[in-house]
């Protein structure tokens, strides 16, 4: 177990370093922050001066090294756009994204697994093929269009749900939450649906196909032959065995939920990290972009770790070493 954790940790560090290196290699191509940072009345001298002060005239490696050195001390620099420490900005934005991701993740999981099980058990029924077809519609339109259509119908035409923002938020310690106010909860609905729909479909399809696979296994036949009830077979025996592959995919999806939140947050003006990233890209706010990408990597790596640990909880066959090193 310890060896496993150490190895994972080492790999995570390597992944982070590579992600960072790749990111820094890319930033120089995304644009030049200097133009955004100076007013219209800037002169060529101002531009050269600012570039030098930002260190943009130095090589990518030096910039990366400086970033790493500071990051190791917990200093992620100051946003070019907002002029505030990146760590503060991210801490301020993270709750919004995490709450949204959590709600849509849970939604995707609950509905995905539920519908997946239903469509697997009632394989050839009308209900199941209807669900399957509808779910395809969900992944056959780009997310942004789904979001805009939801806004158009539910906010503009019906005026049922808010079209943007998080509603009222409450501060609990360093965390702002939208869970505690009615407007906060209502504001979550549309973005969560938009963000979760795709993942839900994916999870549903995987649960369905894994479940169909598991239902064909000998031990399910044997469970039937022992006269167990369908409910017990489906949920106690089949579903549990379905979970192992589902967890892998779900883990990966949680990572991409956060990435997809870029679009959802833009559409719904959701003040989270995705919106922050998009703004950063538009402004070429290098410190923010770097910190965001690193954070996403850390998240992804930790989710992967949790997923691997979950395997051990679920599958007694796995001795810790056998997990992919």
């Amino acid at each position, binding site marked *: 177990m310890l060896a496993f954790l150490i190895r994972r940790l080492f790999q995570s560090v390597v992944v982070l370093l590579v992600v960072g290196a790749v990111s820094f290699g890319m930033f120089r191509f995304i644009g030049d922050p200097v133009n955004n940072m100076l007013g219209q009345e800037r002169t060529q001298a101002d531009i050269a001066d600012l570039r030098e002060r930002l260190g943009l005239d130095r090589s990518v490696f030096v910039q990366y090294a400086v970033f790493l050195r500071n990051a190791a001390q917990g200093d992620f620099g100051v946003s070019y756009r907002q002029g505030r420490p990146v760590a503060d900005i991210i801490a301020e934005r993270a709750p919004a994204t995490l709450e949204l991701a959590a709600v849509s993740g849970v939604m995707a999981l609950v509905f995905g697994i539920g519908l997946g099980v239903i469509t697997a058990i009632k394989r050839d029924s009308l209900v199941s093929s209807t669900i399957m077809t509808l779910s395809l519609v969900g992944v056959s339109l780009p997310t942004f269009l789904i979001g805009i259509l939801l806004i158009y119908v539910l906010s503009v035409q019906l005026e049922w749900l808010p079209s943007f923002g998080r509603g009222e938020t409450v501060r609990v310690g360093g965390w702002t939450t939208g869970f505690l106010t009615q407007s906060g909860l209502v504001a979550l609905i549309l973005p969560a649906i938009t963000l979760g729909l795709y993942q839900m479909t994916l999870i549903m399809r995987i649960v369905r196909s894994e479940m169909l696979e598991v239902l064909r*296994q*000998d*031990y399910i*036949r*044997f*469970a*039937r*032959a*022992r*006269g*167990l*009830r*369908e409910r*017990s077979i489906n949920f*106690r*025996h089949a579903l*549990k*065995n379905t979970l192992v592959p589902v967890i892998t995919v779900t883990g990966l999806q949680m990572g991409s939920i956060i990435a997809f939140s870029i679009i959802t947050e833009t559409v719904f003006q959701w003040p989270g990290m995705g919106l922050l990233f998009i703004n950063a890209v538009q402004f070429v706010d290098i410190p923010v972009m770097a910190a965001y990408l690193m954070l996403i990597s850390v998240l992804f790596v930790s989710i992967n770790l949790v997923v691997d640990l979950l395997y051990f909880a*679920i*599958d*007694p*066959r796995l001795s810790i070493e056998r997990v992919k090193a």
Partner: protein
Amino acid sequence: MTPPPVLSVRNLVVAIPSRAGISRPVNGISYDIAPGEILGVVGESGAGKSMAGNAIIGLLDRPAHIASGEVWLNGNRIDNLPPDDLRRIRGRQIGMVFQDPLTSLNPLLQIGDQLTETIREHLPMSAAQARDRAVAALEEVGIPAAAERLNSYPHEFSGGMRQRVVIALALCAEPSLVIADEPTTALDVSVQAQIIALLRRLCRDRGTAVMLVTHDMGVIAEAADRVAVMYAGRLAELGPVRSVIHAPRHPYADGLMGAMPSLSIGQRRLRQIPGAMPRPSRIPPGCAFNPRCPRAADKCRVDPPPTLADDPQGRAACWFPMEHPA
């Protein structure tokens, strides 16, 4: 007076509709099994052995279904029961053992849980009682330190032990019939001998009827009282083990015996049956065996073979059964 049979199968037909029409992997088989009796069912792969077993216990996968015929268990007809009633019979009155002991057990559940859930499904028992019963069942199949092994997962057992667990699971609600579908094929000979001995002991001690499905004549010879030889979904021959082995009446059974190296010691060449068994969808008219049969006459290519009852010795379904000097 023979006791009434535990299982009685009458003209059972299993049909599978498919693109090429309806195929009948099991096509009109009839037999009885008495309490305490082991009926061996042999035949080549695809002969319909498993299909017959699954049909009896009501576990045919769609689109396969029982097209006609009857299955009687302890005097009750069970092939037409509603699914839930049939489910109550499975495990309670009919136990089933499958070929591969590793895949038969749910890898994520402790074997104690798998045992107690089965017991409590069928018998009105408290959790503690069921547990005791589970320990007893494991002890009965010869698992040492049974009480401690309840919390083990299947992968923690060796192959032979797993098959014992599977048997314990099949027997834990004390069914009157056990269908064992190739219970030893995946095991080593030494373990196979142990498992067969176990099945025979249980059968003798409890009076359980056993339908032992296998393609290994040796296992049948060792374990069974009577043997049914299946070919292309039909019964070719059914009779006491010794007679079928040493004096087969059906040319197919005869060919099968001749092809076994153990029975043809000293011969440079084995006797071989030419060709292969047809698929259920390609069964020729008349006797299914006719293209491969050395005795086949025109009649065999046209008329379906007679039933076992038509045979003077009641054993073979053949127009021209083999005669052996007594």
